[in-house]
């Protein structure tokens, strides 16, 4: 009975991670704002920055992977690969969040030494949506770390943890 609750817990966790990655993807893709001042029109969308494009791609890969693993049967031999693939997906998620965060930080505060002005003052709604996408990505990351620990626990014989 404990095994069934554990398995249901893992499925719920993976569904939640899938949902979070999908949410991050959707919020980033729909972030678009047009601002105009002095007859100059400026449109900010996520394809302007390479880091945001990478964020979208990474979250898409993670969502598809989570969706596929949801349907993996319990006694399959592929669970050993799931551990390493979970690690790979966690690395992908951290790298995408950290890249998008680094670029968004430059967009918000600018970089005085390089002469880069912040853009968040002109397109505040775009900045807010990007922040929301980053938060969703961070939630997906935390869930993925938990999933990684769970896959490690289920592949490696649980006997190890009962050993004194």
């Amino acid at each position, binding site marked *: 009975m404990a095994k069934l609750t554990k398995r249901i817990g893992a499925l719920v966790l993976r569904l939640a991670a899938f949902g979070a990655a999908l949410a991050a993807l959707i919020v980033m893709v729909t972030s678009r704002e047009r601002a105009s001042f002095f007859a100059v029109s400026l449109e900010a969308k996520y394809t302007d920055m390479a880091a945001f494009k990478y964020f979208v791609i990474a979250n898409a890969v993670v969502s598809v992977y989570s969706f596929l693993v949801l349907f993996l049967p319990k006694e399959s031999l592929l669970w050993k690969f799931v551990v390493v693939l979970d*690690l790979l997906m966690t*690395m992908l998620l951290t790298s*995408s969040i950290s*890249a998008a965060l680094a670029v968004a930080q430059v967009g918000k505060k600018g970089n005085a030494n390089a002469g880069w*002005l912040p*853009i968040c003052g002109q397109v505040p709604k775009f900045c807010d949506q990007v922040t929301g996408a980053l938060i969703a990505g961070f939630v997906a990351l935390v869930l993925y770390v938990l999933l990684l620990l769970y896959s*490690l626990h289920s592949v490696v014989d649980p006997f*190890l943890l009962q050993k*004194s």
Partner: protein
Amino acid sequence: MPREKILFAGGGTTKSWKVLLALRILAFIATLAAAIVMGLNKETKTLVVATIGTVPIKATLTAKFQDTPAFVFFVIANAMVSFHNLLMIALQIFSRKLEYKGFRLLSVAILDMLNATLVSAAANAAVFIAELGKNGNKHAKWNKVCDRFSIYCDHGRGALIAAFSGVILMLLVSAVSISRLSIYSNKSSTSTAAAVASP
């Protein structure tokens, strides 16, 4: 059962131990090189900023890694990961007998995974900021940095290459640690089951 005898006598003789040690040494060198090269990355140049009449005004500008928080994170994270690798190398070499006691293999595997994600995050953040510096961004009106500070960009590029090879090596190290964990736990469960079965 000669293989079990070797396993329980302590590490140092199995193939996975040697592979892990080699990978860890390479990862240590790669991340240390990345941290040092980026940490010493600094370029000072005197540029003509404006011209008043016929007199050019020169200003001395310095490009250093502390200007960008992403590069600061890069240096700190690579230093942390290389320190972790050094610690694990020392542990592997100097305490072979205690290799399989308690939670040691599990904690080594988990720490390796965490450090792999850390170094991948640092390398990726730095590479996207470096791409911004190299190509600029027309939409945000951010101009390039690399055409004026080319030595700074070259050193940064070298540090990034070292960091990415560190990422791949840390991924391999984590994979080998996880496989060692699973080999040991499967072996111990089968041996104990055999011991229980045959009184």
